[in-house]
């Protein structure tokens, strides 16, 4: 990977996930396969934090100029979903797609993505969402950085370029820290960065004309032995919810508020 004096080259890794806004009533697990069954009529989405990462890349493109490539990995893609980052303003889409890439664990995912990034080569900055809303592992970006030997900064709420490096505000529970790293580097982005932009009509038209580059397992010279899961999934279940809510109501809304306070006092909670 080289960091030349030419235009900044940014790669954003994104994942297609089950829509986390799927109503709980439609959230079902197939006990046989121990997988979440996609709800009928609810299309997948680009992972929310990954959209924040796309937004971070596009802000750098707006401010200092950059070429933004989006990379994803799976056994299958919903193409209209995967084109969303292009319609937001990204320049190119690369899909690592192979039947062997189904449900890979974080270690295997990072291995395949790192192989694709090596093959593409030449990025100054790699951005990822802080974690994916399906398994919430927050491990793949770390793995890519470790395998490629890159500096890693996680949970960014702001990114700026400065003298050959990047300056990142990393969100903390009660404030933030400022972290500096030389380029090339990998940064994970959090929702504190701000809402991702909406695709424009022009962006959607342009995205429609773009054809993604695809890599198969053999294109990436992937060792199948490294795709096996490291952890054993013993069970996947929806936690039991024993609803025991006592509903309070009064003669009108104001009385309801009063009754609620009285009930909480009776229960010695206030």
């Amino acid at each position, binding site marked *: 990977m080289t960091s030349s004096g030419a235009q900044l080259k940014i790669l954003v890794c994104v994942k297609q996930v089950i829509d986390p806004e799927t109503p709980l009533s439609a959230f079902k697990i197939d006990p046989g396969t121990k997988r979440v069954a996609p709800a009928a009529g609810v299309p997948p989405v680009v992972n929310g934090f990954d959209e924040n990462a796309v937004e971070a890349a596009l802000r750098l493109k707006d401010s200092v100029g950059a070429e933004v490539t989006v990379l994803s990995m799976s056994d299958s893609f919903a193409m209209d979903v995967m084109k969303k980052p292009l319609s937001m303003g990204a320049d190119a889409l690369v899909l690592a797609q192979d039947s062997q890439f189904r449900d890979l664990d974080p270690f295997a995912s990072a291995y395949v993505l790192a192989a694709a990034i090596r093959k593409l080569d030449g990025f100054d900055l790699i951005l990822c969402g802080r974690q994916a809303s399906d398994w919430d592992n927050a491990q793949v970006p770390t793995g890519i950085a470790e395998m490629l030997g890159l500096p890693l900064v996680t949970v960014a709420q702001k990114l700026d370029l400065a003298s050959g490096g990047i300056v990142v505000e990393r969100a903390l529970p009660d404030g933030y820290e400022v972290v500096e790293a030389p380029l090339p580097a990998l940064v994970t982005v959090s929702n504190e960065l701000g809402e991702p932009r909406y695709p424009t009509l022009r962006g959607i038209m342009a995205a429609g004309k773009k054809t993604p580059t695809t890599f198969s397992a053999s294109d990436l010279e992937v060792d199948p032995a490294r795709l096996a899961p490291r952890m054993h999934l013993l069970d996947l*279940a929806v936690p039991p919810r024993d609803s025991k809510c006592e509903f309070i109501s009064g003669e009108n809304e104001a009385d309801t508020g009063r009754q609620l306070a009285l009930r909480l006092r009776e229960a010695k909670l206030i």
Partner: protein
Amino acid sequence: MSGVLVFGELTDGHLSGTTAELIALGKQLGESVAVALFGGNMAGAADEAAAYGADRVHLVEDPLLVDGQKDAIIAAFDSLCREVSPDIVLIGKTPLGLDVGPRLAFRLHAGLAQDCVSLEMRDGKLVATRSVYGGNALATVGFPEQGPRIAIVRGKVYEPLAPDASQTAEIVKFEPKLDSSVIKAKTVQVVKRESQGVRLDDADVVVSGGRGLGGPDPFAQLQELASLLKGAVGASRAACDAGWLDHSYQVGLTGKTVTPNLYIAVGISGASQHMAGCSGAKNIVAINKDENANIFKEARYGVVGDWKGVLSSFIETVRELTKS
């Protein structure tokens, strides 16, 4: 194979509550529990670790650890793990721990369970229960035979043991002899937002608002209520993302985990992502206009209605009741 190693962290110079929780958990899982502490001047924290039940404390010392750079801490912890070959490594779900765990797992080619809400031994094997799909599901996972089993554990799930100052621990110094090249990303400044009044993390009462409040102004009423109950104000991610409150108020999977006695949720639908941060509350009270809102599945007391009509009289009655 030799027992449990806890990644030790400090808060304001003292052993953190999370570390004390992990020691208690470690005692349930292994024969001996060691705690790693990084930097200098750790004698006091080592005594605290002993009081909370640690059998051994590794004082990890290196000139590069003095200013607390994360890359140096990770390299040092990696080095310590190779030296002592722990069977189980326990790390808190903290801003530092969330970075340490995955990097250690990749360096040691070890298994990692993220965001564990339970760890237990089954037939001599470690089994973790972890929250996935934003809290919508629980996954039970087993670890590979090779390498330490690394678990990042959610805070406030396990109770620390009662500290006993008469307990001592074996103190072992470890010098990883780090090369300065291990520091690739460098923290140059930490900006803390001082919270006023009761800290959200420790509050016994939390009054939280969500998207249903419609804007930032109603939070003044929530603050009034929180003050009356000597509690703190929290918010859902939606309210923080909308800019109504700073993200330091965010309760949820990627925000704060709170475990108050009383959690009052106003205009919060109760998405799993939010509940992951407050399901440890002993009593949840929900005010929401949607009777099907998920929050009512978790609430002890509920009001189905518009908060605008309910909240003022609720606050006034609370004021009268708490006056005496």
